């Protein structure tokens, strides 16, 4: 269903080396209209290289890159693309309004200043100099500059680094609004909850290769594990020897267990300690899935 929407940008078998280091190795990525695709990976996994190829900042050594039917970095591709880079280097002495007017002037159909202010949360900041804003406010200005040209493709390279929870959630709302209008969004992030909250599609990258791809649920299913937490007098070292238990750690009154399947372990816990209470069972999050996938990929490579 979701994957039938048109592909707005695509990397096919893209490779890129820096000297002897392979940053991207036959990497495939398709960005669909009306979807947020999250690119997850550790530092140096190749996330920013993939973004650089899409934006035309880097050239691929092999493979093809297509952006809105044009060559990456061409004027036509740039007109339809918005980007938030990790470091923007925006001149500190310019006022937010001056920056917004300048970047809006590049666009064929710019968003109104009022819309940009509302979407990016720039209330009261227009007459302030960029260099006098807080880190979080600067990120919001960068976001406004990325979206002010109504891009059909939006590349956000770790957009919420340095933002507080409230600002982060405001940004997520704005991204959802853009996606609802049919834009394709590529998000690279360290924050797994961000990918979890926003993504229609997740691609896990490790050492320049795609190691997993799917919806958040599909990625999560890569790890069948469950997390169990309960208040009990049972010893962690004792529980650790039970079949199907991967890990058991004491945290104050509580015991935290990672198990392959919850039911047999929970049954045995209840039998072993009738006083047990505050039992919680959770599916592993994206964070666990991500660690598991990249660890497996690492073992195969080794």
């Amino acid at each position, binding site marked *: 269903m979701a994957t039938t929407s048109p592909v707005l940008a695509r990397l096919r078998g893209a490779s890129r080396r820096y000297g002897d280091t392979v940053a991207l190795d036959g990497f495939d990525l398709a960005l669909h209209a009306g979807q947020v695709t999250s690119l997850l990976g550790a530092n140096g996994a190749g996330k920013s290289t993939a973004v650089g190829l899409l934006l035309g900042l880097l050239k691929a050594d092999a493979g093809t890159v297509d952006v809105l039917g*044009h060559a990456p970095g061409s004027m036509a591709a740039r007109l339809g693309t918005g980007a938030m880079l990790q470091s923007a280097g925006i001149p500190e*002495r310019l006022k937010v309004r001056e920056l917004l007017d*300048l970047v809006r002037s590049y666009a*064929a159909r710019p968003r109104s200043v009022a819309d940009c202010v509302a979407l990016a949360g720039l209330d009261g900041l227009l007459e302030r100099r960029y260099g006098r804003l807080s880190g979080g406010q600067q990120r919001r200005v960068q976001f406004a500059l990325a979206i002010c040209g109504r891009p059909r493709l939006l590349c956000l390279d770790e957009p919420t680094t340095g933002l507080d929870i409230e600002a982060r959630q405001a940004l997520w709302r704005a991204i959802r609004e853009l996606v609802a209008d049919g834009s394709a969004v590529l998000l690279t992030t360290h924050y797994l909850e961000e990918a979890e909250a926003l993504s229609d599609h997740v691609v896990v990258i490790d050492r320049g290769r795609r190691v997993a791809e799917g919806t958040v649920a599909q990625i999560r299913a890569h790890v069948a594990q469950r997390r169990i937490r309960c208040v009990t007098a049972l010893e962690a070292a004792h529980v650790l020897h039970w079949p199907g238990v991967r890990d058991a750690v004491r945290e104050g009154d509580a015991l935290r267990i990672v198990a392959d399947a919850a039911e047999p372990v929970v049954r045995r816990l209840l039998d072993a300690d009738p006083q047990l209470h505050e039992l919680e069972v959770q599916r592993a999050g994206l964070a666990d899935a991500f660690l598991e996938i990249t660890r497996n990929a690492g073992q195969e490579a080794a």
Partner: protein
Amino acid sequence: MMSTLAHAPSRSPWRSYLLEAKCEFMRMLREPAFGVPVIAFPAMFYLLFGVLLNKGSAGAAQYLLATYGAFGVIGAAMFGFGVTIATDREHGYLRLKRTLAVPPGALLLAKMAMAALFAVIISLLLDVLASILGGVVLAPRQWALLLAVNVLGVLPFAAIGLFFGSLVSGNTAPALLNVLYLPMAFLSGLWLPLSMLPEFLSRLAPIWPAYHLGQLALKVVGHDQGRPAWLHLLALAAVTVLFFVLAQRRLSAAE
């Protein structure tokens, strides 16, 4: 090319060029470490050497009007370009610009316009000081020519600034440029007439680009060494092309 046009039917690149220039000018004007010395130093030096220490010599007042104009323009162009390009490159502004649909050459042209505007401000300030306090009297054609020399003088020194800005970081650029700027201005006869320098230094003066701009300005007020104008123009054009090409190569190899 066709697709670019098809995507941008209503876009007016002129507005972008204009706003780009405005932004470059505003950021330099608000940068006290740039605006103050670049505008004030030529005027201060002129007041000191052309007015206060000048014992009523009309020739010296004219000579220094021409050379401090050149001195100011060279500073505005070299620092305006060199420092901002180094900073923009280092902090990622050039990268960001490469992702935006900036009209071709807009940033470079904007910096050029910014430096030219500073050249005009410096020239007019010196003109006022020279005519009111220095007692300099020139024909309208000479005032206009002097202004034209100063504005066009931006080009070669912008190119030099661009090249050094493509080599070093934003923090190093001012120091490096000063090491070049101040001795070059002195050895080119912009502070003192070349006749007051040791002979071997004054004979070496034509190797400095600043000498050629200084001579063009001095030719307007009739105090140059008598070499033909086309020679100076040729030297400045060669410097412009050479350093622009070198800078372009450095900047495109930066990725």
